[in-house]
């Protein structure tokens, strides 16, 4: 007789259902935790149009589809710019074979940094392709792009420019900020570029 069974079938079905729900729950909690451990979405880079060192235009459209590392420098700077550009060069060399990763340096001293000066600066850092570009525009637009576009300080330019590197994903979304003169921060940036490359 069914009523005499030690443990009724309904209980076993319930335990099975709980087990299946538990596996499903574990999977979803895992997915949610994984999604949060990804790089945050910090803001969208706005439309902009600057000029590359070779005179060609460069804007948001040229950042779409690629991972970009952006910084603000000026060529006659003798303090933080050499190590910043040195770190950028190390990344440029490291990702030599990766067409989907580019480096963007924007001059904060457009009066002195003409396109030819920028070209020479690029050569000094061994730039021989389009993976590392140097951008120029009048100072008002540089301030706007720095403060409104990449959300980093642009007071008392050129000397007061930020040492930050900005990581931008292929959708033009800012995903992280790093100290361009700090080795530990550069290691984190390297990991994050790889993480972003896997994500995209």
């Amino acid at each position, binding site marked *: 007789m069914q009523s005499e069974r030690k443990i009724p079938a309904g209980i076993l079905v319930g335990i099975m259902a709980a087990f299946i729900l538990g596996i499903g729950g574990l999977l*979803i909690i895992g997915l949610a935790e994984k*999604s949060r451990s990804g790089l945050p979405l910090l803001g969208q880079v706005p439309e902009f149009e600057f000029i590359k060192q070779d005179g060609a235009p460069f804007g948001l459209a040229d950042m779409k589809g690629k991972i970009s590392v952006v910084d603000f420098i000026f060529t006659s700077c003798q303090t933080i710019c050499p190590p910043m550009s040195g770190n950028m060069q190390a990344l440029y060399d490291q990702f030599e074979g990766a067409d989907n990763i580019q480096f963007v340096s924007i001059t904060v001293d457009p009066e002195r940094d003409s396109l030819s000066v920028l070209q020479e600066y690029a050569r000094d850092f061994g730039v021989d392709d389009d993976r590392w570009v140097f951008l120029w525009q009048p100072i008002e637009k540089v301030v706007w792009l720095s403060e409104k576009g990449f959300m980093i300080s642009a007071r008392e330019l050129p000397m007061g420019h930020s040492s930050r590197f900005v990581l931008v994903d292929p959708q033009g979304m800012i995903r992280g900020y790093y100290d361009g003169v700090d080795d530990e921060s550069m290691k984190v940036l390297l990991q994050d570029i790889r993480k972003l490359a896997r994500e995209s």
Partner: protein
Amino acid sequence: MKNFRRFALLSTLATYTLIFIGGLVRVSGAGLGCPDWPKCFGRWFPPTSISQLPPDINPSQFNFTLAWIEYFNRLVGVTIGILIFITAVLAIKNYRKVNKILIPSLAALVLVAYQGWQGGQVVESQLKPLFVSIHMVLALIIVSLLIFVTQQSYYLEKPEADRGAIFPRRTRLWMSLLWIVGIIQVILGTQVREGLEVLRQRFPLLSGAEIREYIGPVNYVHAILGIVIAAVTILAGYTILMKSRNLSGLIRESVWGMIVLIVAQLIVGLVLVVAGLPSLLQLFHLWIASLFIGVIFVLYSAFRRQTGGDHAIGA
């Protein structure tokens, strides 16, 4: 008539699944996966990429996985709303004059509609703990109504079911006490959870043990009451199984269910304390509690079928 009972049972099981999914949304942190309501990021279907976000929405809020977890919860919620609507329509059609089926069916429909709206308030309040707790207690009330409707329609089909059972005299009293204390325990549990969430937000580096310590007396009251409920349940279950006669399959399975659930709840509660409050176990802790309350409700209704003292035996 049989179709109605099957439909009501389906609604009950589906609501329990939704309680599980709702708990999953909370423990996975997906409650604000869709920051607006009823739409998700301004769309009826959540965006699949950032490029689909409306310009007035902050893109840093977007997380594809969390948006779809919350959206799935809403989809299942709507489906259950439809199931309960059909149950209410069938009740009007088949049991227009049977108040004990018609009224709870309509009440479940009104409450599920309110629950949908209240879910929106939960999102708008940015997951204010009180709103989340109201959402959960409402779900328990809805599922209790559905259980009641299912059981009563079963008894209408089989008028003699559960009438011949002979059981210890104070069983009904113990069942009603367990049900009431069970609800109080769930409310206490929501207080513990609220404290937990507030502490985790303010002090994200605290360990599980430190968090429990900071929650204070409500945590200990919850734990002690849990042990008391477990002891009473096991004793009551054992007494019913040993001293009763002519128990139906429904009652026997429900008593076993009650015992298995409370033992499982004890184990989960213990592991929660030892293992530092892991998310999946928090989810099961809540879900088992809701199942326990449902089973106690079934038993109380079943034991009420047997009227008069001549069938009861002394306990």
